[in-house]
């Protein structure tokens, strides 16, 4: 380990909560919401990789790789959805898609 494990955890936590703050703040813009989710997933990956390095175990790296595969699937679907929504209303503002709100 190059630095104590705790410091990496703090870094990952910082990134995760910055992403969370962004997600909460950008509720109107679909693109920025997705970007914030990417940040959070990335922070989780950092924890897994740090754990893998801390205990010399390859499982953490697998999880990081799986997370990446999941993220690419998620982003491809989500962006297809963005394109679809934009085609319907010419905006990506989430407040415009509230027809089902009771």
């Amino acid at each position, binding site marked *: *380990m*190059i*630095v104590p*494990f*705790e*410091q990496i*955890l703090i*870094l990952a*936590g*910082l*990134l995760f*909560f*910055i*992403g*969370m*703050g*962004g*997600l*909460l*703040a*950008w*509720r*109107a*813009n679909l*693109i*920025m919401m997705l*970007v914030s989710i*990417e*940040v959070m997933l*990335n922070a989780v*990956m*950092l924890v897994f*990789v*740090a754990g*893998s*390095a*801390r*205990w010399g*175990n*390859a*499982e953490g*790296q*697998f999880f*990081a790789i*799986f997370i*990446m*595969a*999941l*993220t*690419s699937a*998620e*982003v*491809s*679907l989500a*962006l*297809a959805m963005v*394109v*679809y929504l*934009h085609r319907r209303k010419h905006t*990506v503002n989430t407040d415009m898609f509230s027809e089902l709100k009771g």
Partner: protein
Amino acid sequence: MIEQAIFYILAAVAVIGTILAITEKHPVHAIMYLVTSLFSMAVIFFLLMAPLVAAFEVILYAGAIMVLFLFVIMMLDLGHPEQGMSPGWQTWWPALLLSTISIVSLVVVIISHRAVMAAPAAALSIREVARHLFQEHGLAVELVSLQLLFALVGALYLGKQPTGKDAK
């Protein structure tokens, strides 16, 4: 020692880049800040003896996912911050408050559970990682590939232009 200094620099770049990405009003600029942050993350992964993850981080995150974002922003012409979808102060402060509370509590928890400095574990070679991955987690790999296939089909379905009688 040098590695430690590099780590701190990279951590600072990652955090600052992410903060700028989240607060930037312009989507394209936000993407560029995030790419910077992802780069430093990739180098951190490299320092943490996971070169495979570092390479995939750049190939997949910076090279594919962020490019996809950029593509959608450019194609749908979303780069207009003046169209007013950016959050105001009223939406920022609860988010900030929640994040700050979470970060502070996390730091407190981590520091209170201060463990002894771990002995450096041996670096894993890529060959070993690959053997573990495909021997012990073959099912997971198959599941992930299936999921990628589903995502592909779903994206194709969503992206299909309505033709013929489907169109209004």
